[in-house]
């Protein structure tokens, strides 16, 4: 016998047509699933009554997986195959993971997204996340007694297109239909906004396990508008654990420990941090594989000292978000705290000091995002009249395209509310040009090389005309999930070309397979090519600087033979640059560096003399 829930007036469903929708907070450390039952958003617990599912997946040699608490508690036994915080790797390349070397995983660099080698084969972060989502989906289907219509999944506001697409792919792999991706702080505001329903401007401070986001939201008559977002996609509670872990290593004069001990000490560090939330000190004891005993007392004061730079690191994005929204701290009516790490008393105090008010903590900071996501899922699934409230979200990073000279023309500026469509006209720059290449980029920097390349496509068949006569309208459109499509259209003939911007990682399955194959085949070459390019850039920079210095001060500061020596070294490096031997270029670079050291010292002296000339000693204030 199916059990019924109370529906909103006029919205009862037909039998077997329940619109079961859930909100999922796919967190770095923990994940949750919530739903709206009888008009109230509730988190669904597992069979042991636990709301949080640790986002930890352990792969076994037979290909099976364990997910959650069980995997987490055994992490130290099998650190290479127990993937923790996979969300940090979603849509990221190995170069985007600064601490990759300190993690116990066997990373495999792949185009677009890093992969992890486990006993059950090479797994992508998408597959790992899908395992977590599958468990939550099963939990929800058992609890709700039916198949899910869809889910709203939350992502950090700072996630770029590749990371959002990776999240959608993980959901698809888990058999979930994604109603929408929602920014985590926005979800938190929904949970708070509907419960408290007070108008004004709010800041949402979300310090999760592995990501930090701050959003400035405006609430008016039940309408949420995100004014600005900022954050740091590589800062979270895990970093506080790592500080404690490093402190323990320092205290015991250890430089490195085995993977097994590392995972165990990280778990101890987390326990210690959690204990300090409502205790003034904590005793940490552990026995390492070597038999060495670790036994320390960590006081709240010491922990605050270890954490102070991390706490301060969260305040800079707060400042930037306020500036983007054109607001002062005094304009903020309330500060919503999200994420388990906001339980740390020092953080609450620092946020309180920054915004000049006590932050709101009346909802469970671990659950608030999932609760808000469930409320939105309920609306999107059609269980509530949608005109009750409308949600506006923003583009987290500017979207634009490449123009001449390697510069980026922004078409949709960051923090534009979505869905959004913007068009811009471009023209040909050569007589008789019949095609135009369109390179779509994401980011705030001015140069193409500093932004993230999302896609390239070409508009062909432009009728030959004189330069500047063709009118090509390029339209950028971002849907409600923050995903982009770009259309280019020659307005005279109406010829058109279109691309769904599939961010650099979000390729078709076949393409991914092919690219993976290629990357394995070319992995060594790719690494070498990158290294060579970096060495060449450095060498060129040194040549340019040396040449400029010679032109400026060479005559005044160098004897003819000294100058000839420097010039010979420049010529030597220049000729090595034409070749492809990184070691030779490096040697020549170092030779030039050494050969110009004396020259550089003389220039320094000369410029100091110039700066001091004509000043009395007391004016310099030394």
């Amino acid at each position: 016998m199916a059990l019924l829930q109370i529906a909103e007036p006029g919205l009862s469903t037909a039998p077997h047509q329940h619109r079961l929708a859930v909100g999922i907070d796919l967190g770095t450390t923990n994940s949750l699933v919530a739903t709206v039952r009888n008009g109230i958003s509730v988190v669904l617990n597992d069979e042991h009554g636990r709301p949080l599912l640790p986002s930890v997946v352990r792969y076994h040699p037979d290909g099976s997986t364990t997910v959650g608490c069980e995997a987490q508690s055994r992490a130290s036994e099998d650190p290479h195959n127990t993937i923790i915080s996979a969300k940090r790797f979603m849509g990221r390349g190995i170069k985007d993971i600064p601490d990759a070397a300190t993690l116990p995983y066997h990373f495999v660099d792949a185009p677009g997204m890093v992969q992890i080698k486990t006993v059950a084969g090479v797994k992508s972060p998408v597959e790992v996340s899908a395992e977590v989502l599958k468990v939550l989906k099963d939990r929800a289907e058992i609890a709700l007694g039916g198949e899910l219509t869809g889910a709203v999944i939350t992502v950090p506001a700072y996630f770029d297109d590749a990371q959002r697409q990776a999240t959608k792919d993980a959901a698809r792999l888990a058999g979930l239909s994604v109603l929408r991706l929602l920014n985590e702080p926005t979800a938190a505001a929904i949970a708070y906004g509907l419960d408290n329903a007070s108008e004004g401007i709010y800041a949402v401070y979300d310090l999760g396990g592995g990501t930090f986001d701050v959003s400035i939201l405006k609430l008016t008559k039940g309408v949420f508008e995100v004014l600005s977002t900022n954050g740091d996609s590589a800062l979270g509670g895990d970093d506080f654990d790592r500080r404690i872990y490093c402190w323990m290593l320092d205290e015991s004069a250890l430089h490195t420990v085995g993977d097994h001990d590392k995972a165990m000490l990280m778990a101890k560090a987390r326990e210690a941090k959690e204990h300090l939330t409502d205790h003034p000190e904590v005793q940490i004891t552990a026995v390492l594989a070597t038999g060495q005993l670790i036994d320390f007392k960590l006081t709240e004061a010491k922990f605050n000292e270890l954490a102070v730079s991390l706490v301060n690191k969260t305040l800079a994005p707060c400042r930037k978000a306020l500036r983007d929204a054109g607001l002062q701290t005094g304009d903020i009516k309330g500060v919503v705290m999200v994420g388990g790490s906001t339980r740390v008393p020092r953080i609450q105090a620092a946020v309180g000091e920054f915004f000049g008010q006590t932050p709101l903590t009346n909802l469970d900071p671990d659950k608030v995002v999932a609760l808000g996501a469930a409320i939105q899922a309920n609306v999107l699934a059609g269980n509530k009249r949608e005109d009750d409230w409308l949600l506006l979200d923003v583009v987290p990073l500017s979207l634009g395209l490449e123009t001449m000279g390697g510069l980026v023309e922004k078409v949709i500026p960051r923090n534009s509310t979505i869905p959004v469509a913007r068009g811009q006209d471009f023209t040909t720059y050569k007589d008789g040009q019949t095609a135009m290449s369109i390179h779509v980029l994401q980011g705030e920097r001015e140069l193409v090389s500093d932004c993230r390349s999302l896609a390239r496509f070409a508009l062909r068949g432009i009728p030959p005309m004189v330069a500047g006569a063709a009118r090509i309208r390029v339209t950028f459109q971002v849907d409600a999930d923050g995903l982009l499509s770009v259309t280019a259209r020659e307005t005279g003939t109406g010829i058109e070309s279109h691309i769904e911007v599939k961010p650099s990682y979000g390729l078709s399955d076949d393409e991914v397979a092919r690219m993976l194959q290629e990357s394995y085949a070319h992995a060594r070459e790719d690494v070498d090519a990158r290294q060579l390019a970096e060495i060449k850039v450095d060498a060129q920079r040194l040549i340019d600087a040396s040449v400029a210095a010679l032109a400026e001060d060479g005559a005044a500061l160098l004897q003819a033979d000294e100058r000839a020596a420097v010039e010979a070294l420049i010529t030597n490096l220049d000729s090595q640059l034409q070749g492809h031997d990184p070691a030779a270029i490096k040697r020549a670079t170092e030779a030039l560096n050494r050969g110009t050291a004396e020259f550089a010292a003389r220039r320094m002296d000369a410029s100091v003399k110039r700066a001091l000339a004509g000043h009395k000693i007391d004016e310099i204030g030394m």
Partner: protein
Amino acid sequence: MGADTCSAPQGDATELTMGPAVTADASVTLSERAANHIRNFLAKRGSGLGIKLGVRTSGCSGMAYKLEFADSVDPEDIQFESFGVKVFVDPKSLSYLAGTELDFVREGLNEGFKFNNPNVKNACGCGESFNV
């Protein structure tokens, strides 16, 4: 999804035929547990006069229950009260619901409302639709 997931009443899986079909008691009641939950849901929702029960003709076995929050009352609605919670039923539905008790039950991880309706002769396998 949809009605095709459920076939016509069949065999032993659907032996949900209950009680006497004819009832003298034409009231609709709530179990205490159901009333407590409804009171709680109404309080958290912040508005609503009570709940509205009804029956619609749909589903694979003919009829389906309707369970909604009541924000307004139609003049012809019949009002009951159980444990302080108001229950509204339209007269047409009442003929199918007379003697029904609404209960709140927990089955494993799932929990929700259950109609104990003495008028039901057959229900589909899942009990979401029925006939009298």
